[in-house]
């Protein structure tokens, strides 16, 4: 420490060069701080998956170890038991202000959607209800551009009009880290701090920061979950990766897409986009 102090006194300590994860982290912190400043009331969507755990972690980075707004879990009641256990454990450990939302039964959802998309749309309806009840102006969600072509079109601050609709043809300009915050009654803004992250960045960051995850991501009997949704519409992939480092190694050679195990993405060409326009994540 003395040596450090001497160097410091001489102005010799230089900032550590930022690597790619440092840059992604700094940008996400900036976005979270913008949201906290500009959009009140604000909440963070915690799906219990790897991306939203990274997002909670980044919020703690942004606000010196705490999450100064509620986190929402919109429960389809069809998640894996491991996920519910994880939620209960880390709500306490991370001192989160947890809000639970519940989804309507599938019979109440648009019957013209293909079966898996219809099931996924329950979550959209549950989320919409919660946002309306709590009058949230900002909702932080952990989507990434590389997950899915429709998500690649997203803005960091993405306005949702009345009825929570996403007007993909008429999105605001967004540049130089300036985010538009239009407001009318019934409108909210989805904030996407992970938009620029890729799947492998998420895993490398989990490794670097030692962020806890649900075990389902790690291989048992030759299979693991690469993406976690409802039990009935998510399937595991073949994998031997049973640690974070092994998952990273696997991803570095993999060329299949992450959401391959998510049924609603593949039912028809436009099913996923229809879900998103209506407010799905």
């Amino acid at each position, binding site marked *: 420490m003395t040596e450090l102090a001497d160097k410091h006194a001489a102005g010799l300590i230089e900032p550590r060069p930022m690597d790619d994860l440092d840059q992604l982290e700094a940008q996400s912190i*900036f976005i979270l701080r913008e949201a906290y400043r500009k959009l009140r009331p604000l909440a963070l969507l915690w799906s219990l998956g790897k991306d939203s755990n990274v997002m909670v972690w980044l919020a703690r980075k942004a606000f010196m170890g705490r999450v100064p707004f509620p986190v929402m879990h919109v429960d389809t009641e069809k998640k894996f038991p491991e996920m519910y256990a994880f939620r209960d454990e880390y709500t306490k450990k991370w001192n989160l202000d947890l809000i639970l939302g519940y989804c309507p039964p599938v019979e109440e959802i648009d019957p013209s959607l293909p079966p898996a998309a219809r099931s996924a749309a329950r979550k959209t309806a549950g989320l919409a209800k919660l946002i309306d009840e709590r009058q949230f102006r900002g909702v932080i969600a952990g989507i990434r*551009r590389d997950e899915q072509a429709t998500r690649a079109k997203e803005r960091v601050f993405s306005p949702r009009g009345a009825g929570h609709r996403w007007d993909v043809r008429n999105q605001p300009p967004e*540049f130089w880290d*300036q985010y*538009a915050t239009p*407001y009318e009654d019934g409108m909210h803004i989805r904030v996407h701090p992970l938009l*620029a992250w890729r799947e492998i960045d998420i895993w490398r960051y989990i490794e670097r920061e030692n962020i806890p995850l649900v075990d389902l991501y790690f291989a048992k009997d030759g299979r693991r979950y690469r993406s976690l949704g409802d039990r009935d519409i998510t399937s595991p992939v073949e994998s031997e990766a049973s640690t974070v480092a092994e998952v990273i190694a696997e991803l570095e050679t993999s060329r*299949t897409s992450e959401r391959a195990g998510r049924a609603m993405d593949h039912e028809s060409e436009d099913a996923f986009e229809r879900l998103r326009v209506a407010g799905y994540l």
Partner: protein
Amino acid sequence: MNAAPDHHIPIEAHRVAATPIVIVGHVDHGKSSLIGRLLHDTGSLQEGKLAQIIESSRKRGLSVEWSFLLDSLQIERDQGVTVDSTRIPFRLGDREFVIVDAPGHRQFLRNMITGAADAEAAVLVVDAQEGAQEQTRRHALLLRLIGIRHVIVLLNKSDLLGFDETKILKAEADVRALLARLEIHAETMIPASARDGDNIAERSARAAWYKGPTLVEALANVPPPAPRTALAFRMPVQDVYRFDDVRYVAGRIERGTIRVGDQIAIGAQKQIATVAEVCRWHAPERPVAGAGESIALRLEPDLVPDRGDLLFPAHDSANAPVRAARVRARLFWLRTEPLRVGESFTLRIATAEYDVTVASIDAVVDLDDLTLNPGDHVQPDGFAEVTLAASHAILFDPFAPGLSGGRGVLVDRFQRIVGGAPLIGAAELPDGAHAIHPTASHVDAQAHARARGHKAAVFWLTGLPGSGKSTVARRAEADLAARGLSATVLDGDTLRAGLCADLGFSPEDRHENIRRASHVAKILAESGQIVIVALVSPLRADRALARQIVGADFHEVFVDTPLETCESRDPKGLYAAARAGRIPQFTGVTAPYEAPETAALHLSGEDVQATTQRLTSFVTRTVLPE
């Protein structure tokens, strides 16, 4: 307090962030095809994607179309154009890139900026046969205004010229001349065919005369961004938190380096403080931070800066930011209505916000030949040089490519981004001119609407003299008041009795009368009031001016009473006087009345009571929430 004892930096090579590359160019010059080809030839396609392209192409009875990869939204395929920018990662050797695709369709300029603004380098795709087109010039100009440092030109479809050296060099010279006018130095010009793969990843056998790099080689040659840590320190304050009795000044360092013990100046007030701690959570404790880091500072004394205050070195006047209340800016205009002198906005620079008014439009860019010309307005998607006057001194670093200083953005009162305004420097005042620095309200339209229980709007009643505009307006005013809605009527004669007493009835004076009425209406509407204007306003151009001054809340109402009815009413005896030749230039008799083509409300005007009812109900529907 913030150290994480269990924190490890993994032992691996330092990975730099991916280099963003934007691909721009005129529609149909082959941008999307280029990206598909690039991803394919560099082995960057995910397995599912290639199958997706083949399947989509097959369904449409086409051979493999590389552009389908990007046109992943149904609506885009239906229109056959790329709607928005997308980002696609790919790798060349050890280096990661992110391709930003930007559309060529001109009304989608804002999407292109969204994609292009962070790019380190640009590939400008030009059809070798067609040469530079309107969007080529527009995109090139934008590359300059958003500060892209490296530009590579791809002369696509060179196969159509048979890769003929003479023809291609001619095309190259034309593009070079265009870019030179924009002070853009194109580092490389590559004759290529994206469709066939010539000079993309593989050297073309058909252009043996060409000795320069392939596109992939040119991209690999783009230097990484220069570190900004050696520059003078700048951190715009993003927010100030107080957690567990500790005050944190949060922000991202724009440039330079900050160390514990450094003395910094805070904003235009230049209070001085010393950095007591550089705070992070779950990161190794270090008493230093550099450009790009999002950190929090503890200051001694424990001052409370405002969001937007710029932190900079306290004792380095040579490298201090510029301080000026009048600034020159280059402008790219993104609103669907033109910009005119006198309009007010919020200017955002990083986290700071200033109330500004467009004091002058100094020059407008002609996109046909890229010349600067005088002009009184800036078209949507247009470019100009403007002077902005602020209510308080603006603290900024002049805009420079590759740095984040001076990145001004104009925001309207609905918090929508309407333009980019890179700040060039302080503006000199013309000799003898008196600088005005208007202030703007801090109460927004929603707050007014909440307080009053209704929205504000301007209803502009136009129609012949005697059509009943003022009568209907006054009755509607009373009806609205009875329902608890506050409305003001601005009618022609009342205005001319006071505010416009100096004006006569010449075309110039009538124009001025309308200009003043519009501004008064705007001021009232901005304070939350319902405004009913009753003015003959016979000329479409004058009403267009009124609409432009008032903005989005303008509703044109045509009181369409037949001339015979007006003339038979003749409440002021004006028709009789005009027929007798005692009033020259009387609307409807000796001067034209240009009826509105698309009024928001069309009233017959024959029956005063029915007309009033229709107006009142239209106003009520417009200003009351659903």
